[in-house]
């Protein structure tokens, strides 16, 4: 069964996504305290982590599955798995990285169960301005570029898409990606380079390369 394509709504103003993780390497003390309480078995603390992180987790799942409904299923599975194993979270990785790995693993299982179903992603017109204080022309250009790139990512085969999303969008280490996808580190790197090459040729083509673009 094929599902109808879903419209991808992109939030272009980060302030509209209040629960998003910070991507700096320094852990937020409030977040650390919350994680510690969740690890100690406090359900309310885990619920709060869900509130703070589910938007980012959904974004990752959406980019890995290419489908809103599938992403919702993947995220629910991922949080259930995270909840069941939070007592084993040692804190040597950031919570976001740990959660991303679980989402990646659930998406990989989901995708392989589902086969290679391709979905088309349509972009909405009502995209919100990213930085109103910035040059509007540049902002429009940046938004268009992100949309083109998101569409190109969705056109990649799932095995290439997973690796580039996890490495270059969500910054997971090669080793973690290889672990979660059940492949070797060198295979993960080969897929990453192949994916980068295809995206670069499609989104930033050199003379002659765009002849191959579909």
């Amino acid at each position, binding site marked *: 069964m094929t599902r109808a394509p879903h419209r991808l709504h992109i*939030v272009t103003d980060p302030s509209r996504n209040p629960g998003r993780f910070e991507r700096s390497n320094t852990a937020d003390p409030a977040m650390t305290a919350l994680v510690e309480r969740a690890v100690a078995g406090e359900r309310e603390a885990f619920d709060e982590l*869900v509130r703070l992180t589910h*938007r980012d987790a*959904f974004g990752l799942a959406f980019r890995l599955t290419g489908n809103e409904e599938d992403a*919702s299923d993947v995220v629910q599975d991922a949080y259930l798995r995270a909840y069941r194993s939070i007592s084993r979270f040692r804190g040597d990785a950031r919570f976001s990285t740990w959660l991303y790995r679980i989402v990646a693993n659930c998406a990989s299982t989901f995708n392989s169960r589902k086969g290679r179903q391709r979905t088309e992603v349509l972009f909405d017109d009502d995209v919100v301005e990213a930085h109103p204080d910035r040059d509007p022309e540049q902002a429009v250009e940046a938004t268009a*570029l992100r949309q083109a790139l998101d569409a190109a990512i969705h056109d990649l085969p799932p095995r290439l898409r997973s690796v580039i999303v996890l490495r270059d969008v969500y910054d997971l280490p090669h080793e973690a990606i290889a672990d979660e996808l059940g492949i070797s580190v060198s295979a993960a790197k080969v897929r990453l*380079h192949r994916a*980068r090459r295809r995206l670069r040729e499609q989104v930033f083509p050199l003379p*002659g390369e765009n002849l191959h673009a579909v």
Partner: protein
Amino acid sequence: MLSESRPAACDAVADDLAAVDEQYVLSPAVGAHVESCLRCQAEVAGYRRLRRTLRSLADHPVIVSPQLEGEILARLDVADGRPAARVPVAAAATIGSIAAAAGVIVLAARHRRVLRPAG
């Protein structure tokens, strides 16, 4: 001007150019080729721009259904053996706003009825 077909020397380093990131830098031999080759310089710039744009995608996530949070928490409730009857914060806020708006409309209608002259 860049040529339209990729020369063999550029083909030989193409995989290295795609591999460059924070963890991988070009070997001296490949670096020397890139320094003398406009086409490969343009390719490196393309990869740099690609990686920058890819990183920015995570800061511009997709819009999430307001029901998702409640659905996740309900799954956890079931796992915990709790009754799964939750209203997510966003959905609760929406319901609250609608109820408040309805209240205002009812009050305004009553007020108008009181002010309207008899007959």
